[in-house]
């Protein structure tokens, strides 16, 4: 089961869950993903130890996609 989670004031919230064998769940996850990007979130996936990558389309085969907010110098 793949997950799309958003880091927020609750710790994190699960926005969508899907398996690649379930086209309806994938489509719902894609819609949710786009909606979160519209809200200003950035999507990240881990690409190996110590590496992460920003994605602009939902990687359906990823186990975990994390939505983060932009950062800025304090």
């Amino acid at each position, binding site marked *: 089961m793949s997950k799309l*989670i958003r*880091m*927020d*004031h*609750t*710790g*994190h919230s699960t926005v969508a869950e899907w398996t690649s064998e379930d086209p309806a769940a994938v489509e719902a996850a894609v819609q949710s993903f786009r909606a979160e990007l519209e*809200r*200003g*979130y*950035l999507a*990240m996936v*881990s690409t*190996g*130890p*110590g*590496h*992460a*990558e*920003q*994605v*602009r389309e939902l990687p359906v085969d990823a186990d*975990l996609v*994390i939505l*983060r*907010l*932009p*950062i*800025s*110098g*304090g």
Partner: protein
Amino acid sequence: MGAQAQPLDVLPETEGVHWRPRVDAARLRRVGSLWTLTTVAHVVPFLGAATLLMVLQPLALPVAIACIAHAWVIPELYAQRGANVLRPRAKAADEPERRSVGLLGDLVGHDARELHARTGLVLEPGRLGPWLVGEAGAVLLYGRRRRRAFCYCIKVDGRALAATGSAQPLPSGDRIAHLLLALRADEQGFATVANLTFAGARWRLRRRMPAVTRLAVDAALRGLDSASRAPS
């Protein structure tokens, strides 16, 4: 959105600071040298004035001592400013804190998790050097034997958070996870977006840090092999 035009391996936030040169090893060396020169320019005149006063009029000893104190205090104040980037912020409620730390734990390895539990900081190996990531900033230990510390103030953009409709602050684990993911995606971009607060001697920074967070510096110096980057 303008950020869409940027390559995916470049942090989109760098577009907001387009006037800044992208940080790389050469730039770090240059900034470090400039920082040392600036420190010398602050310290030497005070020490010179103290010496001159004593030569001209030994009765001016109190003024000479004040000059020496200035020469000591100014670099210390800069180091304190650097250490402040790793200072923990106000905690959220217990449940969000627990959930956020759980997520952070999923992103790092066992040793890094343990270190975070003890110090509140995450040790993250980078190509430029080991990073200590806190809730509102990060420190890069750089150079031969990691003798120079670059302290960066960087955090989740408050305007972006407000734009999501949430007025509540993020819990500590999420604050660190935001910085960690950005650092992992584009280390140089991360250092470019962040505001530099200190680029001086590691020993000077370490002395200004709370005892518990000094453990994280020590862990970084012990070697990165023991601090796994992520679960396999």
